[in-house]
């Protein structure tokens, strides 16, 4: 069995294990062991990937495996990984691992909770390893369904409404996506011959322009909804605020990345000509996302809403950078996805931990937490600093790569929009510091707080795992950036072929 398939097999085995075990202790152990194994496996994958690349292998995809499972439509179970998917897989295993520990104390139907959570993760892993459009789509749907259950059953607040809204909007997006994917499929062999869903094979042909004009917007918006593209982002604040901690983590940390990754891998990679022509519309929309999300976050009072809007802003930057279609900006987009995934997961984990103590998420109702729970507060500050792009943490690396990359665009209009997008660094600082000041600093506002216990061991595991990678990327970004950079080559060749400037 190849290493990539293991990424689906392990979660499936974990789920089987979870079905068999009896009490909550065993549930936790099986879930943690399974996802711990997954984390180790992804470390092995990164190592293998780098050593294979180091030995001079320049294939587009490594660890490729291709099995036909539906002959008449030429659907394959085809997996393969390049630097980008390896990075996304590593991100996913980190976030899932931290998510398991962040939901250590779920006591309502814990078994079912962890099963759904890991099922969701399975879908995400499958999505990132697939290079067959149909299989990819299948895994994507696999991730959306458990999300509905997780929010609807374990959520809080208006959970049915939020779950329904989120699922319906994502399903609507899937409908667009399915159209887009079928459109690509039927145009995958313009000169006649076998139609295919295989991304690599499609990328070697050029889809006719008329088809691209139709299907590029469909796929881009389809993935864009998931990546919180303005104005299709409204599922995000409600969904996040109702979702339980681990689901928010996975959702903002990983599921939203499916959007960025898909937009990059499918929409731009397969239809670069239309992307070039139509990108200006979406660049305007994403610039709006960046600023609008940040301004929206300033006045929010619920911690999860703040992060939801902040995610709109940060994920907007991902799509913004992808649309700039040059090496540096795209590289920055991928780093931003990873960075944002880690730090939002951290944010939501911490919000869950705070909520467990204060039983509120309204910032005005809390205050002075730094004194009573210093560990969690310092973690929160670190997450905030990563979010506002402090050098030494991952957010900075992502942002400067994006800004410098986007500013290299030969067109003045794009450079001006880049300047517009850079203003987000100030607005972000405003809302992050506002939250830190109200929530953590100042005198202790409630005397019950003095009895709070600081982080428990499992909470520390969760937070420290995420923080160490935020810092690692921030301090030594070169390896990640070059791992992604080499994998951008196929896309760039296609882009340069249409517009050699």
């Amino acid at each position, binding site marked *: 069995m190849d290493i990539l398939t293991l990424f689906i097999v392990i979660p499936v085995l974990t789920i089987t294990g979870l079905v068999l075990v009896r009490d909550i202790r065993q549930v936790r152990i099986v879930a943690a062991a399974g996802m711990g194994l997954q984390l180790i496996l992804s470390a092995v994958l990164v190592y293998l990937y780098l050593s294979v690349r180091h030995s001079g292998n320049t294939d587009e995809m490594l660890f490729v495996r291709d099995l036909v499972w539906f002959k008449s439509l030429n659907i394959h179970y085809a997996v393969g990984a390049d630097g980008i998917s390896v990075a996304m897989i590593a991100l996913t295993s980190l976030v899932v691992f931290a998510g398991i520990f962040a939901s250590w104390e779920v006591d309502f139907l814990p078994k079912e909770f962890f099963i759904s959570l890991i099922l969701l993760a399975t879908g995400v892993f499958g999505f990132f390893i697939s290079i067959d459009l149909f299989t990819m789509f299948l895994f994507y749907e696999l991730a959306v369904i458990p999300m509905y259950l997780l929010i609807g059953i374990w959520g809080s607040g208006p959970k049915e409404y939020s779950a329904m*809204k989120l699922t*319906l*909007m994502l399903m609507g997006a899937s409908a667009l996506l399915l159209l887009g994917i079928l459109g690509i499929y039927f145009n995958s062999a313009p000169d006649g011959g076998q139609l295919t869903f295989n991304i690599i094979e499609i990328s070697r042909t050029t889809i006719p322009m008329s088809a691209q004009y139709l299907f590029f917007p469909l796929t881009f918006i389809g993935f864009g909804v998931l990546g919180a593209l*303005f*104005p299709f*982002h*409204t*599922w995000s604040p*409600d969904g996040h605020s109702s979702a339980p901690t681990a689901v928010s983590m996975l959702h903002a940390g990983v599921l939203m990345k499916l959007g960025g990754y898909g937009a990059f891998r499918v929409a731009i990679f397969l239809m670069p000509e239309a992307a070039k022509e139509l990108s200006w519309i979406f660049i305007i929309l994403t610039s709006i996302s960046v600023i*609008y999300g940040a*301004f*929206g976050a*300033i*006045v*929010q009072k619920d911690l999860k809403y703040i992060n939801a*809007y902040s995610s709109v802003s940060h994920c907007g930057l991902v799509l913004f950078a992808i649309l700039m279609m040059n*090496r*540096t900006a795209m590289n920055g987009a991928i780093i931003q996805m990873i960075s944002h995934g880690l730090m939002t997961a951290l944010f939501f984990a911490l919000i869950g931990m705070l909520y467990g103590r204060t039983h509120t998420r309204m910032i005005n109702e809390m205050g*002075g937490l*730094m*004194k009573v729970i210093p560990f969690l507060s310092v973690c929160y500050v670190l997450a905030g*600093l990563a979010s506002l*792009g*402090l*050098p*030494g943490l991952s957010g*900075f*690396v992502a942002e*400067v*790569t994006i*800004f*410098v*990359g986007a*500013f*290299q665009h030969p067109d003045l209009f794009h*450079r001006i929009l*880049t*300047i517009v997008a*850079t*203003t987000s*660094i*100030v607005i972000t*600082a*405003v809302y992050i*510091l*506002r939250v830190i*000041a109200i929530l*953590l*600093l*100042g*005198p*202790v506002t409630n005397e019950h707080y003095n009895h709070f216990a600081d982080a428990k061991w499992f909470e520390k595991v969760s937070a420290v795992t995420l923080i160490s990678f935020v810092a690692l990327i921030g301090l030594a*970004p*070169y390896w990640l*950036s*070059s791992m992604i*950079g080499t994998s951008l080559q196929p896309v760039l060749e296609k882009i340069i072929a249409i517009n050699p400037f």
Partner: protein
Amino acid sequence: MNFNYTLWILAVPFLMFILLGLAGHKLKPGLSGLLGTGGLAVITVLSYITAYLYFFRTGATEGVYTKISAFNYTWLQLTDKLHIDIGVLLDPISVMMLVVITTVSLMVHIYSLGYMKGERGFERFFAFLSLFSFSMLGLVVATNIFQMYIFWELVGISSYILIGFYYEKPSAVRASKKAFIVTRFADLGFLIGILILSFNTRTFDFITLTDPAGPAITQTGGAAFLGLSVITWSMILVYMGGVGKSAMFPFHIWLPDAMEGPTPVSALIHAATMVVAGVYLVARMFPIYFFAAPAALEVVAYIGAFSSLFAAVIACTQTDIKRVLAYSTMSQIGYMMLALGVSGYGGHDGLGFMASMFHLSTHAMFKALLFLCAGAIIHAVHSNFMTDMGGLRRYLPVTHLTFLIACLTIAGIPPMSGFFSKDEILVAAFHHSWFLFGVEYAVAGLTAFYMFRLYFSIFWGNETHYHHTPHEAPATMTIPLIILAAGSAFAGFIPFSRLITSDGVPFETEIEWAVAIPSVLIGLAGIAVAFLMYSRRSGIPDRLAAKFKYAYKWSYNKFYIDEIYLFITRGIIFRYISQPVAWFDRHIVDGTMNSIAAVTQYISFRIRRFQSGQLQKYAFVFVSGAVLLIVLLVYLWNQ
């Protein structure tokens, strides 16, 4: 000569920060203080060795000081040409800054051992001081503009954390937030400036950028926007970052509030080192300003001159001693900016450049000294306000004497160092513009006045009734005062023009008495006025304040700049942008989504009647549909 070891100047404080930050609470407070101070002592020694080797052994080739890239590591490759490096660049100004920063920082570390003793979070304090030292040193030795930006942000965050060190105090929290956001806004300009500059020059590297024969200066120009070249715009934007960090008008509002931090922090960050980063930035990029963006250099000069006058006027009416010193810092930095703005390039033309760097060093000494003295005074009387002080000369003899030396230095009385450095600035201004020269003369008088106003009200005047007798600070606090006082007194005799010049070529200077004598006289006049008004408790200040009521009120309220900012942030951005955006999002964007859902629901509610399950209804619909179709077909057939 191999300067590889200079890497340790950055590595030691960084490691110390990690150590104290992660394990500080497990160590005894005293030990973490000593570790932090010891680490700093090591890098101070290294810096002095570097300065010696650079200036007197290997830095100069054929009498000209060159830029040496001691160490350079590619941190992040961005495009083919653009890459962010982390490295160490040695040239006269960076070596000078190494010496200045480590000296002041070491003094502040030693002083803090006494000042912060017994405070909660003692080890945290030293961890952050190490972080600050690391960031500041990384800023000055930057080999490229992006490294500078990185460390620029890091000093910003260190400053944020240290201003808010007493995080349970709401005013400290507010001040730290304000400082960070105001400077962050200015840094946005810096970042955009870097983007534009690097887009046009294809490099971040300082050696290439500042080479007068290099591509940055010779090949650009061309495209213009609003009458100024692109490079000029980018340099003005870069300068915006410097304006923020150096608390120049109009981004100065964070500095007085930053005095909420512990006093050693004010001495180190908000007087001696971080706030001069803006001056250093302009000095670092000086050839570009001079050759490619002279208009931007004029901006530098006028903003510097205006800030120095503006701050000096405000300083005359403030009563919190740390705030007086903060405005004085702003005013003195204005001097340095002005000196750069009026400077030429190369040899004696670069007098302003040299004077600016000279004043930067002497100012670091005497302003740090003033703040540390202020700390000792506050330590003794437990108040920041000079109205609560008076007659302290008998209780605090060491502090009194060192404070007096510092006041004489800032007032520019010979033979103190401030006399020499200020004189060079005035000469440079004199040769450039009469107007700026006149402004700076006035500022010199005001400076002497407000400093001695402070001095006389604290140490002379009527003795206030103290709750318990003030006593002199412990030795850990007085020794740094004495060392810094010696530095302020004698630093003027360092032959700066032979070491630090705009193009690395040494030149000779001598005092221009025609400029120097009047400036000393103005200084003495300021002192005399202050003596008359404040040496004994007299009614003169109150009567003057009453007579010039509006002038006094405007100055006392800092010309209401804070209120203007508050109006913009609270009134406009918060109320007229953010809240509408949030409302729009909830009600319009999301409302649309919800109404799509509602419409769908409504329609399906209607449509479901078709699926009633009643056979006769189905039959009716079927038959009437069939009839309708037939009618239609017949109609069409007959057409």
